[in-house]
């Protein structure tokens, strides 16, 4: 009986994911209303619940997809995977006014370059602080602080060791997860309540999943603006980290 239910849920994994996420959203919005008096968005709580469950899933299964590695919840990987996420992000652009994008466009581009540079330098400083002296290691860890995709791509290009590449992925994951949690909490201080600052935020932080979830937890209307710039960030990082930025690091060390 139990086995057949498990295999049924496993077979219809995407449908099960819809039901599970719906339930999690209900609980999160209930908590937002009744426990925080609406001060913390329901979506922020839902994302934090998701991350906590992902941690539990990762610890218990040893897999790399959080809760989605638990058989019953395997549909989460499809529902929250890149394909549907990008489709939904693009759909948020419906209703965006182009003047807003144009007005903040130049600042958005500046934020993109500055964002990659600042994250890279932050990662490099920490790597050097922990005693790394090889330019390849420093660059790979620094690239990981850009995003968890830029890190391994850069490491592979430069021929970094697998431990350093793993470290760079972890740095990128920390950045992404911290962005999800810290964005709604700091939004007021950094003025994240209008299309312009959202575009700049997307360029400065850049990690797509972090920006997507952070803005969703702050104000869903800001998502298209932040996502618009963030979508160029990883590509720009992959372009700059193993080339210009690596040469910069090598010139210093």
């Amino acid at each position, binding site marked *: 009986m139990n086995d057949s239910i498990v295999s049924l849920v496993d077979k219809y994994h995407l449908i099960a994911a819809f039901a599970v996420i719906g339930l999690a959203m209900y609980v999160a919005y209930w908590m937002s209303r009744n426990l925080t008096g609406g001060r913390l968005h329901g979506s922020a709580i839902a994302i934090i619940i998701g991350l906590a469950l992902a941690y539990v899933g990762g610890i218990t299964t040893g897999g790399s997809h959080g809760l989605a590695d638990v058989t019953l919840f395997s549909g989460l990987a499809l529902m929250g*995977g890149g394909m549907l996420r990008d489709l939904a992000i693009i759909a948020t652009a419906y209703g965006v006014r182009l003047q807003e994008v144009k007005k903040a466009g130049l600042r958005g581009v500046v934020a993109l370059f500055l964002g990659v540079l600042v994250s890279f330098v932050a990662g490099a400083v920490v790597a050097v602080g922990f005693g790394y002296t090889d330019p390849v290691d420093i660059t790979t860890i620094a690239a990981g602080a850009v995003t968890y995709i830029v890190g391994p791509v850069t490491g592979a290009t430069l021929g970094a060791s697998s431990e350093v590449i793993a470290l760079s992925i972890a740095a990128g994951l920390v950045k992404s997860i911290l962005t999800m949690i810290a964005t709604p909490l700091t939004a007021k201080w950094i003025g994240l309540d209008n299309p312009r600052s959202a575009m700049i935020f997307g360029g400065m932080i850049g990690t797509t999943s972090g920006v997507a979830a952070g803005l969703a937890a702050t104000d869903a209307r800001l998502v298209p603006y932040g996502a618009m710039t963030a979508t160029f960030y990883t590509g720009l990082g992959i372009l700059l980290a193993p080339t210009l930025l690596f040469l910069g690091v090598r010139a210093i060390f």
Partner: protein
Amino acid sequence: MVIYGVALLAGCMLAGLIIGDVLGQLLGIDANLGGVGIAMLLLIFLTGYLKDRGKLPEATESGINFWNAMYIPIVVAMAASQNVAAAFSGGLVAILAGTLAVVLGLALVPVLTGKKVDDAAPLDARPPSHPPTGR
């Protein structure tokens, strides 16, 4: 029909991703350069064009709006399938590098945004003649 909206969305996504892919190849990087952002711009242009000509009926719109409304649940599912365990097992180097990048990035947002001017006004503070983009 609802599928027209979904197909329009899917078409924009594929076109944007193809353009992003070509851009990446031109620059010699193994990544899609801004495909999603290009798709967003395509969707804005196309729906604006169709709307001006009255060729975007409500049913078509609802095909796009459904995925728009599914955004937050999808992001929650994404959060639940993140490799959180690996982020914590990376040790202090990874945690500090990631944290410093976020702190500096967030701190620079107000610097780049500059003074609060008209076009950087909060969405909530808009006069009714400019309704907030909405959901």
